[in-house]
């Protein structure tokens, strides 16, 4: 079924009785050409582009819970292309272009909103670093505008500009940055993949990977064994467990990242604001809730809930930056399991097993990457060659020293 404005109106007139489910609920077949493990954003977009770009439609996505139950439904939805390292820069630029055509492509409203992202700076040194980043973004063909203090004031008059510790010197505005509705991205890709013949199989946990003579043969699941010619591991925070089924030890440590949302308020924050020095960022959802978050809890965890020190830190940072939010009531907080890599950058690569591929290491930044990651993972699985914009996301780069340390903090697990 195609969605359109006319369809919404006619359904409204006739009691909304004509809507059909957005995807089927098939039983697993005995064999597929390709199995994708993980029905998060990246797994679903991989399946979609396998079908759409490469004509490979005998595909199953195996999800242990329900579609979108992982980080894709837990993140704070910032979409941006403001990286500067070669390797990252072209990848996120590609992803941004896909975002810009995504709703038309999927025939699905993902509520992508390019409301502009402002990264604040608080010293001359930080200003220089942001000038450099802005130039890198422009060189990549994306957009960046350096704002001085008054420039920031025009956009965000409600910030505390004269904070003693972090006075606001200016900001880097990325006009094409913004946000999107996270669930809708999962649902849009799911529906698009299903329409092209992909089987989306929920409540199906992969418990083993079958390998014979170095070649992948299929997987064991809670719904039985399923054979496949190729298998992709796309399970974000659970990457280490699933990769271990193929005898791999990954450069990944899983950490908790928390986020918060307030009760719905009238429109007050038009942009996405990032206060890096305070580890705080905020935007307002279309429903009116202030959506905000901070840094990792900073210890390995699979609990999908955080601890109080980070809650306190995030609230303090928010109050420091914009005292006006002090009376908003926090409705909910939650956590997601982040697949942290030592250098803070992802992996899209083959493995030592023929036909087994892996897409992981998205850290806290994998939502914006959903379109390009699926695009490049599908390319790799279909052609056997890395896609041009993802060729540096190699699994062996830690061993060879070809790191992608965007933050420049070092390649160590507790530094990103």
């Amino acid at each position: 079924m195609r969605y359109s404005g006319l369809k919404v109106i006619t359904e409204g007139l006739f009691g909304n009785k004509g809507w059909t489910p957005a995807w089927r609920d098939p039983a697993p077949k005995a064999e597929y050409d390709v199995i994708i493990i993980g029905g998060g954003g990246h797994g679903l977009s991989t399946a979609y582009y396998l079908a759409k770009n490469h004509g490979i439609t005998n595909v199953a996505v195996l999800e242990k819970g329900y579609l979108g139950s992982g980080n894709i439904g837990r993140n704070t939805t910032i979409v941006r292309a403001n990286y500067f390292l070669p390797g990252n820069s072209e990848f996120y630029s590609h992803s941004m272009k896909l975002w810009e055509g995504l709703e038309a492509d999927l025939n699905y409203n993902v509520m992508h909103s390019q409301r502009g992202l402002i990264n604040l700076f608080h010293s001359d040194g930080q200003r220089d670093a942001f000038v450099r980043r802005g130039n890198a973004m422009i060189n990549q063909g994306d957009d960046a505008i350096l704002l001085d203090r008054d420039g920031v004031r025009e956009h965000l008059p409600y910030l505390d500009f004269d904070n003693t510790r972090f006075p606001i010197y200016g900001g880097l505005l990325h006009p094409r940055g913004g946000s999107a509705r996270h669930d809708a991205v999962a649902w849009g890709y799911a529906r698009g993949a299903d329409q092209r013949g992909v089987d989306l199989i929920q409540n199906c946990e992969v418990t083993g990977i079958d390998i014979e003579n170095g070649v992948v043969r299929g997987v064991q699941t809670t719904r039985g064994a399923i054979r496949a010619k190729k298998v992709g591991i796309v399970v974000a925070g659970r990457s280490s467990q699933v990769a271990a089924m193929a005898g791999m030890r990954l450069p990944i440590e899983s950490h908790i990242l928390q986020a918060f949302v307030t009760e719905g308020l009238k429109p007050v924050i038009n942009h996405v604001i990032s206060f890096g020095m305070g580890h705080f960022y905020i935007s307002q959802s279309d429903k009116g809730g202030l959506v905000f978050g901070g840094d990792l809890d900073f210890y390995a965890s699979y609990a999908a809930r955080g601890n109080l020190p980070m809650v306190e830190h995030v609230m303090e940072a928010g109050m420091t930056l914009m005292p006006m939010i002090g009376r908003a009531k926090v409705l909910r907080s939650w956590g997601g399991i982040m697949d942290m890599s030592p250098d803070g950058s992802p992996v899209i690569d083959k493995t030592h097993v023929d036909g087994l591929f892996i897409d992981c290491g998205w850290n806290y930044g994998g939502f914006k990457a959903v379109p390009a990651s699926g695009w490049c993972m599908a390319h790799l699985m279909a052609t056997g060659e890395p896609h041009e914009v993802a060729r540096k996301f190699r699994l062996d780069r830690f061993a060879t020293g070809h790191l992608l340390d965007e933050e420049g903090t070092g390649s160590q697990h507790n530094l990103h």
Partner: protein
Amino acid sequence: MRLTCPLCGERDRREFYYCGAEDYLHRPAEGAPLAEWDNYLHLRDNPAGVTKDLWYHEAGCSQWLMVTRNTVTHEISAVELVAERKA
């Protein structure tokens, strides 16, 4: 989360700096092959369950601690001084 330091007693999580998995205690010998260094620095078991990791009692006794805890429940079963660990 609270950790019970063998020297200082039960303390708030904020007093501790987290270093990472206890792999850092198994430093390869000088001249070891690169793969061993990669394994030591980057590759991790990253278990969903019981793990051992290293914490530094920064705002206390300045000792390195080896903590045995569950990454799913956050339950802590042991805290030992790295300095007293038997090799």
